[in-house]
């Protein structure tokens, strides 16, 4: 629908927001909150970082928008954008994996389920990875594992913090054991980053489950989560099947993990950027005495006459 059509429609019958034709929702002009049902003008919602103005529900945001939300304008520089999956197992379920990949690539404009790069956050340099749930449920195969590992290695080289926004259903089954081993690979890179005492903060967004939870999502020096995000290792249904009793309502939510000590803080999205910047600043090592210019160690030195 063009903007003109929209105005034309509006003039015909300026409807109350609740009565918006489905078409407008589909066109993205208006967005319906899946939690409270409120219809909001998408632009207003975007200004509020896709958090419902009525009920604070955190709607999904995808990699481009997330990068835009977190990184200072004009400072993003993407890494390894030329890596693509190549169906090493010739995997075919109801559909061939290579076809599936192509479909998702066309649908999302992404090559795989993560974007990585460097940029500034309130002027502070960092290496950022953002998983994208749209691409095969954010599943981790060889490309996701490789891009994240290179990102972490980059962070170690550049001596800067690594932040990973997690959103994933887990390992990508279509790449079999190659996917599982990405858990070890990313954890190896994090071990080296950590050995240098460089900072790593994963941000757990809805949903973060399976192999991602059992690797880099849980290895942060500090771990942040978005309100009400689903976070867990086994799927809720799997757990339900193994138990006869009903699961608590808040089971595997960010709040549940906070209660049980696995998350440091739940940060509403509008405060996420400032919170990250604050944490990075607090953890920036003070310059060592040996690194300082002599004048700062002993100001009197400047005044010593030759």
């Amino acid at each position: 629908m063009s903007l003109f059509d929209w105005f034309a429609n509006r003039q015909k019958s300026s409807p109350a927001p609740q009565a918006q034709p489905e078409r407008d929702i589909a066109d993205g002009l208006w967005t319906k909150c899946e939690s409270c049902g409120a219809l909001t003008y998408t632009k207003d919602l975007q200004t509020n970082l896709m958090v419902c103005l009525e009920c604070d529900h955190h709607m999904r945001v995808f990699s481009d928008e997330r990068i835009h939300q977190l990184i200072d304008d004009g400072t993003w520089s993407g890494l390894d954008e030329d890596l693509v999956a190549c169906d090493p197992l010739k995997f075919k379920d109801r559909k061939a994996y290579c076809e599936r990949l192509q479909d998702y690539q066309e649908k999302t404009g992404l090559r795989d389920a993560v974007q990585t790069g460097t940029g500034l956050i309130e002027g502070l340099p960092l290496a950022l990875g953002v998983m994208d749930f749209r691409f095969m449920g954010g599943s981790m195969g060889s490309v996701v594992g490789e891009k994240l590992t290179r990102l972490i290695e980059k962070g170690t080289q550049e001596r800067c913090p690594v932040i990973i926004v997690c959103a994933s259903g887990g390992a990508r089954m279509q790449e079999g054991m190659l996917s599982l081993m990405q858990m070890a690979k990313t954890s190896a890179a994090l071990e080296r980053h950590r050995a240098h005492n460089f900072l790593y903060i994963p941000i757990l967004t809805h949903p973060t489950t399976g192999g991602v939870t059992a690797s880099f999502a849980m290895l942060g020096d500090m771990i942040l989560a978005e309100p009400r995000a689903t976070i867990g290792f086994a799927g809720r249904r799997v757990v339900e099947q193994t138990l006869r009793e009903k699961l608590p309502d808040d089971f595997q939510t960010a709040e549940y993990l906070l209660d049980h000590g696995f998350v440091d803080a739940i940060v509403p999205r509008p405060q996420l950027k400032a919170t990250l910047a604050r944490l990075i600043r607090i953890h920036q090592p003070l310059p060592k005495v040996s690194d300082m210019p002599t004048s700062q160690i002993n100001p009197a030195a400047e005044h010593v006459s030759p």
Partner: protein
Amino acid sequence: MNDSKRKLQLLDFEKPLAELESRIEQIRTLAENNDVDVSDQIHQLEARATQLRQEIFSSLTPMQELQLARHPRRPSTLDYIQAITDEWMELHGDRQGTDDPAVVGGVGKLAGQPVLILGHQKGRDTKDNVARNFGMASPGGYRKALRLMEHANRFNLPILTFIDTPAAWAGLEAEQYGQGEAIARNLREMFQFDVPIVCTVIGEGGSGGALGIGVGDRLMMFEHSIYSVAPPEACAAILWRDAQKGPKAADALKITAKDLLSLGLMDTILPEPMGGAHSNPIEAAQTLKQSLLSALDELWRLSGQERRDLRYDKFRRMGIFTQIAA
């Protein structure tokens, strides 16, 4: 074990072989009772049985490999420990409030060499299986493993892990106590130990639950063991929307030792006695012991730093992807 009990544990594809064997037995009894010489006939049939066994076991489908890997009489971690060590003492507890019986570990000597051995432990019968949760470890199991590995690293004991689990336990408490965190931490920490680490899949390598004790300098798999990103039945339920498509999923997922060797994810396949490890556990244990000793022999020639660097490089190379022209 008596005959009727053995038959209960026969796998489908073993049945033609079992039938032939019981026919040989019948003829032998018949001949003995009637005092006739049938040794020629029996020789022939036995040769046929050997050939049949070879045929069956050299062309197993991935689903059949999976059945063998899950065989109730397949030697377990404690069986192998008993068979290969000169002495061994089990050590208990994660020091955080639990002692998960699905993971066992302890210190001992292997051909005179002090070692730490740990692994998943399935039950040897139904009651034991319930107690050990069918070898599905809880967070406490992974934390016990980590505690023992840290201990080994301090005292310069090589770490030998035996992998045999359907999956990490998916229960309410497992989630509550941080199953994901427990496995993740092991993955990271196993990269910082200086001592040699050798991981062997002895039966079922079930996804993250297996990998949680599966980061090492050498990765070995018994011939009829499997290692999978997800249980094939679960994968079938998700990808084919039909749990009955397990065999199809087992095929597609590439879970056999041979497949994983060719994908560059395994270093060594340990040959099993004809008919699988359970048909001759002592022989399987000897193979394991020799392979562990030769791996350790190679690894001890390196410095701790070299081992860590090589371990990093080994996992760093895992993954297959392409780079497209910009």
